[in-house]
């Protein structure tokens, strides 16, 4: 018994000997918030993205590696609006980290500063995988990114006051570059207004809303509910009557349903990065929107 206890304590002590790290540690739940944190935090932050563009953020596991990152994080940057409800609460509870608990300065929810679309009037699971606070996939409207950037800059200056000037300067610089980029995208994407599209899950709502794409139908009959053969057949009939110009698919979506529909309704499938890293071109937030606009324009020709 004593030997067991000794070995146990020795191992614990070994684990305690770890080099100190000066940079502000940020655990971002998704690649877009990781990218934004890097834009504003520069070399004063050490950012870890909990998920990649090829994962469905609704369905992520509270992996040991994530608990370990939550343990030493100074700030958690999450989407909120219950997008991460299946795993983030476990990370926070298991982290043993008082700083990042919800409500504290070390916990930031992007959607807390946004006006969400599709806030349901009634909430019932028979309606599928709906989010009571509204559709959380808000990062696909760059104006939302600007709002989140502003709030995140404020949070960073609050958390790491000694570098406040640095964050403010980077935040302002990002806003300038971002607004110029938005103007560029909006000018370039003007021909996309009113272009009829089909989506898979209702997570391109903000993109459609921003660019004025007309969302004809969704391949999922209800959020998170896979289509039945009957529903797909109806969809084909509907789309043959009023044709869509393209079918939007996210990098993380399986291509089967979109390809199947594409063949039958003669509309190309456009694979969108959805978030940073989803396509080779989407290296950062600027690349993400450049690439999405380019791909949409390419398919709309």
């Amino acid at each position, binding site marked *: 018994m004593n030997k067991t206890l000794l070995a146990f304590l020795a191992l614990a002590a070994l684990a305690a000997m770890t080099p100190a790290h000066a940079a502000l540690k940020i655990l971002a739940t998704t690649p877009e918030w990781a990218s934004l944190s890097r834009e504003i935090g520069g070399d004063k932050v050490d950012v870890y993205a909990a998920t990649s563009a090829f994962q469905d953020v609704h369905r992520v*596991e509270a992996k040991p590696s994530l608990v370990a990152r939550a*343990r030493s994080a100074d700030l958690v940057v999450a989407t909120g609006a219950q997008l991460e409800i299946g795993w*983030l609460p476990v990370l926070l509870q298991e982290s043993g980290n*008082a700083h990042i608990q919800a409500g504290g300065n070390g916990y930031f929810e992007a959607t807390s500063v946004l006006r969400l679309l599709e806030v349901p009037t009634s909430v019932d699971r028979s309606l599928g*995988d709906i989010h009571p606070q509204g559709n959380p996939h808000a990062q696909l409207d760059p104006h939302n990114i600007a709002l989140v950037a502003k709030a995140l800059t404020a949070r960073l200056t609050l958390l790491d006051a000694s570098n406040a000037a640095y964050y403010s300067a980077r935040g302002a610089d990002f806003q300038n570059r971002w*607004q110029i980029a938005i103007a560029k995208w909006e000018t370039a994407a003007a021909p996309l207004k009113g272009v009829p599209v089909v989506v898979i899950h209702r997570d391109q709502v903000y993109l459609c809303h921003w660019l004025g794409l007309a969302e004809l139908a969704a391949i999922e009959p209800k959020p998170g509910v896979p289509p039945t053969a009957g529903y797909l057949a109806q969809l084909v009939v509907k789309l043959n009557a009023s044709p869509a110009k393209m079918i939007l698919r996210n990098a993380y979506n399986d291509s089967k349903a979109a390809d199947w529909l594409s063949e039958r309704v003669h509309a190309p499938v456009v694979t969108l990065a959805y978030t940073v890293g989803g396509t080779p071109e989407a290296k950062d937030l600027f690349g993400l929107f450049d690439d999405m606009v380019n791909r949409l324009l390419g398919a709309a020709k």
Partner: protein
Amino acid sequence: MWMKKNRGAGTALLLLLLMSGVGRAHADELSELKSDIAALKTTYAQKIVALEARIAQLEVQASAATAIAEAPPPPPPAPAGGGGQSAFNPAVSVILAGNYANLSQDPATYRIAGFMPGADIGPGERSFNLGESELTLAANVDPYFLANLTVAIGADDSIHAEEAYFKTTALPAGLLLKGGRFFSGIGYLNEVHAHAWDFIDQPLVYQAFLGRQYATDGLQVKWLAPTDLFMEFGAETGNGRHFPGTGRNRNGMNSTTLFMHAGNDIGDSASWRAGLSWLDQRADNRSFDSVDGTGAPILNAFTGSSRLWGADFVYKWAPLGNSIERQFKFQAEFMHRIESGSLAFDTQGGNLNGSYRSSQSGWYAQGVYQFRPRWRIGLRYDSLHSGDPSIGLVAAGALTLADFSELAASSPDRTSLMLDWSPSEFSRLRLQYAQDQARRDARDHQLFLQYLYSIGAHGAHKF
């Protein structure tokens, strides 16, 4: 950018002018040059005007966008529940479970041969059964604690507090303190609630050594190392009443648990967690049904120490971490237990007493594969080794091994195959077939159909 162009244009103009000054004074050449310069001037002037217009346009757009960016954030969403007292209601979730069981052997005769029966074991009753319905209430208490209550309502209308604990949220340095009644952190499956199991029942090693699942009334302290490699160290103490211990009417700490877990990712697609556990407690008169050499039913009892150590390993894989389409999960656990003390024979009759020592082990390994969205198939193999216990009464010649026939060496095993379908995250239907050779002399063919429904707050599960 435009400044550079402008400056470039100016230099070009100047150069041209200079060149024209030193050029030969052919009249038509000069006029040609003049008209060229004029043309250049107009072109650049037009370009500059165009650029200036573009800048002005950008500035307007930028200021408009900044105005949007600087607009006050939208009002926060109204709290769920409409405010008032109910705004602070805890998260409520309910699990409903039930099954249909077809068992080739009478479940009343279920024994794990070679092992002293303790708590709740076996495949349950035949035919239609209501499973355990679980009601969970959970919320933050204040900025320092959270609380969780899980009440299990059994098919026999029994109600018991499965878990009822508080947990700290504000301790420094990666420390977590938990108190109340909780599933111990030992092993991998021990902390997992029944509705999240991948098979309808617990592995035999859990049934034989821990009476299904080891819960304790006590305290747990956990420390998470501040490393990128996940490392967690935990210790628990409690009243030690849960099988394999018994109530002992004694002050102080009646059980000790130590555990440690480590885990990490392997690339983008896989993750693992491994653990070691130790459980030390005592049993006083832990009685169990048996039969003597003549086949007459008697009651025996064990008193002594029960020490268990275990190792567990979990590996999960999904292509690029996306578990929607396909996922594979492998898990295996090993446990070894030494019980030593005294064994009382026929406590209500002759009540003979002698020494007792057993060294027993067991393990299981299982793989569950999600081969298409919502469908999973799983295979599990269970194995136990009881070994021959050393029984003082037999060694001294007072009794023979036939008087302890249930404790004679045995190696029970079981193979289970399951298929489940989850229409959504909140519902699951399962078919399971098992060949159970826990009994010494008979093979039990078990067929189960199970349903699991989850309503209320969205649960979040551990890895």
